[in-house]
């Protein structure tokens, strides 16, 4: 039996709907449903784990934390940021590390990345989740921190 997963906000900022993410893959929820955050340029610099689990994928600009039951949450820092080759990002954990929700995994220079002309919107995706398994807690337009529950992912 697996329990509900509480997904907290990985960055401080303002919640937006996935449909508003300027990327066709995320906005159509092709890899899963979720919410996105428009990060605060200063307070959003610390990127925190959205759940308790293992860092199974770690790129400078994106990562996946997998819960004990195998479900994974993807956090993508900005759009088309893979092209930056890690510039503007510093990692504080390694792939395979066990992390707790709220633990800092990455720090990023939001202002410098925004200056490259890229969107700094951060999609938070419940990978391969059925849309009806997701209970959105944070309303679009609301301000969130790592203390805030973004969504609950039902078992």
């Amino acid at each position, binding site marked *: 039996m697996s329990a509900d997963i509480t997904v907290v906000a990985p960055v401080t900022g303002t919640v937006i709907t996935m449909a508003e993410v300027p990327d*066709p*893959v995320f906005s*159509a929820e*092709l*890899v899963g449903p979720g919410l996105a955050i428009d990060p605060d340029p200063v307070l959003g610099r610390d990127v925190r784990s959205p759940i308790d689990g293992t860092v199974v*994928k770690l*790129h400078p600009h*994106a990562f*996946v934390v997998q819960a004990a039951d195998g479900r*994974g949450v*993807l956090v*993508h820092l900005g759009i088309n940021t*893979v092209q930056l080759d890690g510039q503007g990002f510093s990692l504080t954990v390694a792939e395979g590390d066990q992390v707790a929700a709220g633990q800092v995994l990455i720090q990023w220079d939001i202002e410098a990345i925004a200056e490259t002309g890229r969107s700094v919107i951060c999609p938070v995706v419940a*990978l*391969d989740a059925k849309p009806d398994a997701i209970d959105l807690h944070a309303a679009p337009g609301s301000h969130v921190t790592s203390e805030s529950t973004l969504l609950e992912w039902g078992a």
Partner: protein
Amino acid sequence: MVDPQKILDGLGGDANIVDLEPCITRLRVEVEDPAQVNESMLKAAGAIAVMKSGSVVQVIVGMQADTIAADIEDLR
């Protein structure tokens, strides 16, 4: 399951690929000639979706993107 050989074929083969990079759930591929990219072949090979924008093709394959990219590199 995604078939790496069919993905490679659907992208127009080795000669058509300028750069291929996995990004967690997708393959980002820069191609020589976008007209040689066969979307229906890519979907038949297991892709969830295909997004084309100029010479960049994104093949959405889900969480196993890194593995598939490594398999494709082995075939090239």
